[in-house]
């Protein structure tokens, strides 16, 4: 029996009826056609599907969609400001912080949550926070550098805004 799910995704309110068995990632990808969020495993152990729920990094495969009722979800599609990439996204491109790109959405969403909590993380702090994210391509170091680069960009952006 379908149940009502009311939540906000990338700033847009949704009011839909879904089967309770659906995982959040299924609703995002299949119902809302936000396929930027990928899936990498069946055991909740790769963090490829990470999104932000109320600002926190969460695996969208390990949450029933109905559990997101009333919450605010941010996916990779909600990161850019129109055609302008988010500083974290820019930093990922500039630092070659991805290769195949399949785990990248999850990496960026986790970075986004991390940098909100800790605007200036060290290499070790980034490692600690990103530890669940499986990447088979990069060896992680360039991701780590991108995140710290992004931290600098975000801070610069902030001080710029303040100056205005």
């Amino acid at each position: 029996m379908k149940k009502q799910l009311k939540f906000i995704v990338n700033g847009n309110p949704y009011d839909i009826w879904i089967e309770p068995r659906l995982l959040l990632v299924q609703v995002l990808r299949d119902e809302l056609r936000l396929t930027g969020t990928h899936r990498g495993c069946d055991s909740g152990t790769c963090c490829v599907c990470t999104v932000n729920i109320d600002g926190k990094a969460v695996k969208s495969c390990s949450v029933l969609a109905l559990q997101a009722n009333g919450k605010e979800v941010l996916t990779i599609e909600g990161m850019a400001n129109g055609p302008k990439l988010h500083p974290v996204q820019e930093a990922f491109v500039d630092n070659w912080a991805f290769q195949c790109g399949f785990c990248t959405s999850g990496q960026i969403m986790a970075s986004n949550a991390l940098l909100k909590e800790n605007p200036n993380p060290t290499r070790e702090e980034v490692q600690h926070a990103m530890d669940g994210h499986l990447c088979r391509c990069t060896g992680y170091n360039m991701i780590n550098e991108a995140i710290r680069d992004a931290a600098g960009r975000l801070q610069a952006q902030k001080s710029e805004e303040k100056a205005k």
Partner: protein
Amino acid sequence: MKNIIFDFEYLAPKTLEEALTMLSQYNEEERKVIAGGQSLLILMRQKLITPQYLIDIKGLSDLEYIKFDKKEGLKIGALTIHRAVELSPIIQKEFSVLSEMEQNLSNVETRNWGTIGGDIAHADPCGDPAVVLIALNARLKLNGPSGERTMDAEDFTVDFFETALQPGELLTEIQVPVLPPNTGVKFTKYNQISGDLGLASVAMSITLDKDKKTCSDVRIALGGVAPAPIRAKKAEDILKGKKISDALLAEAGQAASEEASPTTDIQATDEYRRELVKVLVKRVGVEALARAKKA
């Protein structure tokens, strides 16, 4: 990828009372309780459990709290997420070992959604919180059809993934008594790959007497090396009442490794897990002792 392919009725109680009523309405075979679901949803995707009714208690915000009182000690609502335990200033101050344990529990994503009560009730013998709570002499509050009761954390897990919860009961609160003076607690787990389930874990709480020389009390808990987290009582006896030295800790490590009953799997043999216990007890002991001296 694997999805949940069977249908179930989804029930989301608003209050504890409502949840308990729902629990008593359906028999254990046909219903399951979901909190953070970080482990449960995987089992459902594997079709290993196929409940007809899923009772979602994640929304019971009444059970999401961390309270501290100098007399009563620490009280953590069962639905408090791991991350809240990890970041709680009062826990970092009064029970830093809990926060340290949380820092290395799985990954941030799991800790942001998974609950500490769900972890304990899932009763994975490799789960970390239970081991630390046993060393901290914690009690667990259970609510059920006939009211509430408390029990030692030590007695809660009875076998692989099996607990002392009676039908209709829910784990609702974790109670950690105030640490006695001159007490140091340390937890460590060993995993080759960070963020993994531990191959073995050890938590130790050492209380020194007034002059900080002899050990007046000690609790040693082992994780991942038996069907449930266990206390290494023989190892405790070796330390109790003595002046703790490295040699004595090594002896305790040996005793603890004999108390463990690990199994062999693809990750490690039972022999190696015993060795881990031996070494970890020694190492944890050194640090717990240092903390007790500083306390």
